[in-house]
């Protein structure tokens, strides 16, 4: 009998954030060895080694091991004579996902293959206008099952061939993990002010024009305004993009940079959050803070997926939003609650855990008779 394994494929830096809660869940609930398989591209991308350190910590806490694969053959070699479940956070037939997609293609039949939705707007699950332009409407998976955040009726980009693979689990980020909260979040008397998230590397910031300057100019003007009132602002770069870090953008004195992994940030400690369309908007909404979605003045950037939330563009909008946060936050939060209901996202952490445990434990047992 082959030893049961839960294998996590890690290729993009963001993958860690998505699969981490599942690794903890597997360690707590399932009788299987946990293995992280890192593509050599992941090691290349993680130039500062931040995510490899994170992974070390995860491996230590979940008693799991990690290997690097540099080709389909080396991955095949690792998987041969094992059985269980392979989980990828970014897998599809797009060339950017080839390093996980191909592993799913060649994985021995003794494995069940699962792809997780890795963002609110996500290729193959729920695409925005730029996704459609870049990748078309027929994105497919090599996985046997794909796990999404929302009811299948909301998964408008799921190709017809992939619908039968869909399983509604909700986002992994809501699973409880045994991580220690970071030290900063314990200092509750500190004023954290607002949180602004940038994803300026994103394809949506470049496809239909260059919106980077427009966003940063408004951000700088907002910071100046906050500074006059003695308030600070926290800026959070996208974990994979790191635009302000990579481009050495000089930041005003009252701006703090937060570059911790998302699971080490206590979003609830911020007074409000602002971001261009991005999954972090959903993270902040779920954390229960007032959130505004930035869109360019001409409304070229597609923010339609966030309809129902507060949309802001120029400095006046930012200031008006900040005023609303101070004066009538309950109005904003009620608006966000309605939004969550409308998009049919599963937010009940207990239910999400049940669905994942059911899936993974049944998956492992189903494969009990193979080989």
């Amino acid at each position, binding site marked *: 009998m082959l030893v049961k394994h839960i294998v996590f494929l890690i290729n993009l830096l963001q993958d860690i954030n998505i699969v981490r809660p599942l690794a903890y869940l597997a360690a707590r609930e399932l009788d299987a060895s946990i293995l992280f398989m890192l593509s050599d591209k992941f090691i290349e991308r993680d130039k500062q080694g931040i995510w490899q350190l994170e992974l070390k910590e995860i491996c230590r806490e979940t008693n799991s091991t990690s290997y690097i694969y540099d080709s*389909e*053959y080396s991955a*095949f070699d690792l998987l041969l004579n094992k059985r269980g479940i392979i989980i990828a956070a970014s897998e599809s037939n797009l060339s950017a996902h*080839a390093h996980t997609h*191909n592993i799913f*293609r*060649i994985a*021995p*039949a003794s494995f069940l293959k699962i792809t997780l939705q890795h963002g609110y707007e996500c290729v193959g699950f729920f695409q925005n206008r730029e996704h459609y332009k870049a990748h078309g409407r027929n994105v497919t998976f090599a996985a046997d099952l794909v796990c999404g955040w929302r009811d299948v009726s909301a998964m408008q980009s799921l190709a017809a061939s992939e619908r039968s693979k869909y399983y509604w689990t909700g986002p992994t980020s809501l699973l409880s993990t045994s991580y220690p909260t970071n030290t900063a979040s314990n200092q509750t008397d500190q004023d954290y002010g607002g949180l602004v998230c940038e994803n300026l590397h994103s394809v949506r910031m470049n496809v239909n024009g260059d919106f980077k300057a427009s966003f940063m100019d408004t951000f700088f003007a907002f910071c100046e305004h906050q500074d006059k009132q003695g308030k600070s602002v926290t800026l959070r770069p996208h974990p994979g993009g790191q635009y302000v870090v990579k481009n050495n953008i000089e930041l005003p004195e009252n701006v703090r940079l937060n570059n911790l992994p998302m699971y080490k940030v206590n979003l609830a400690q911020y007074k409000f959050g602002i971001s261009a369309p991005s999954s972090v908007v959903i993270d902040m909404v779920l954390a229960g803070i007032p959130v505004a979605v930035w869109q360019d003045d001409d409304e070229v950037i597609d923010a339609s997926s966030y309809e129902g939330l507060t949309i802001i563009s120029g400095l006046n909008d930012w200031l008006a939003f900040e005023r609303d946060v101070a004066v009538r936050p309950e109005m904003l939060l009620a608006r966000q609650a309605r939004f969550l209901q409308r998009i049919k996202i599963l937010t009940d952490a207990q239910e999400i855990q049940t669905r994942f445990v059911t899936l993974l434990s049944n998956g492992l047992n189903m494969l009990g008779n193979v*080989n």
Partner: protein
Amino acid sequence: MKICVIAPTQEYLNLAGVRIRYLRIEEHLRAQGHQLSIEVIETFRALPHFKHDVYLFSKCYDARSFLIARLLSKTGKLVGIDFFDDYFSQKNNSNFVCHREWARTMAEFVDFFLCSTLRMQEVISAYMPDIPSHILNDPFDNIDLDKIAATSERNLERTLSTGQIEVAWFGVGDNPYFAVGLRDLFAFRSDLHDLGRSGFTVKLSILTNRRALTAEGLEMIRRLPVSYRLDEWSVDKEDALLANSLVAFIPVNSQPFSIVKSLNRAVSALTNGAQVLSSGYPLYEQFGSFIYRDAHALLADIVRKQLVMRKQTLPDLQRLFAECADPVREAEKLAVFLAKQLKQDRLAIQSKTVPEASLGLIHGARSPGECHKFAQRFRYLSISSPFGADGPNYDVRFVFVTDNQTLEVQLDERAWSKLKPGFEHLLEPKASRTGRAVKSLNLSALFPDESDLIAKVFKSNHIALKLTTYGAVMSAVRQVIISIFPGIELYLSEIEAPYWLGFSMNKAQISILNFD
């Protein structure tokens, strides 16, 4: 007689084909008083290095081989080619235009050719109809009948006692142009399925090259209907695997590339004591009843404990091998054939006088840098075209001067000394783009039509212009070269489309193309 096999690269020397085809007859040639050695083409630096009697090109499909063959053909050396892969019969496949053109060019210089099979000989005879040829079969390494009998018997006993059939698949798993190797294994997987439905369990062991183990290759392997082991191929692993396998599965598809293949895989399997199951094209027909053609026959023989290759039938197998795979006989037949050709060649050389001619190589699409170096090393003029690489220090380079919109040709010393009398006073001393002293000739003034045409390509990078005018521009280049170097023998180096097939558009057609 000293025989030299010319190989394309150092890596080539490590391939199974080289070991099987040349090294297995080497010792037997030696025993008969001959010598066989293998040299990489790049090691030849000058004509005096060619000290052997016979030169045999093996898979050297670029201009370097005909540069050498042209020079050797006038020296009393015997020059030939060994053909064992069919890149020549697919007349409608544009991937192999350069192979076909290569064979046509080589046909002018070679004295003989060798083939691995009769079918390959038929294919090549279409290119070289009057050139003597000989079939050199891939020989076995050594044959030990007692060992084969013992191995075969042991494997049968183990199969019956364990209920597990050990199946081997080995060989090159891929090809850049043809669906072979792992694709054959995958396509004929129903035979494995049949074996597995018999009540026996099937354990397939695959030995193949690393390059074949791409996502596509591995995906096919994982979809096989039996359990498998996979490892990278080596000679030792192959021998060990075959000795422990009841049967080698060698399916063959019917495309031209596959049906000319030599019998060496079946020979290796049988001489190591494994039965052979080969479905698809009957490539191993010569071995008659020693080849299982379907899984059911093999299963029936396992059950009645009487496999086709067993102690009692081995004398018949030995007789078959003697006809088509015996290294001693293959070495003998080859030596006789070559000696006869050598004698005839030397007689022919005595009776003909060869005029000295200037030689030149024009570099077309993707001409390899090695061909330029080789041309200069062997005293050919290395001639650029607007389509060749920009880097090499050609002896003759076409240059478009943007200042005065004229086309000129820059000649180095070796080239200007061969220039047609009457042109010297038109030469203008210049420095090449790398600072070498060259002399330039204004072509726009001398050959306005050809220059206009060639200049068009320099003026535009448009891919459509290159594709549509390639043949015409290359013809113009040749015309100019012939005009300024009278009597020059020109050869062409190109390994990528578009190809210069003698096709050229007329002036009216060209004039309507405007990509400027």
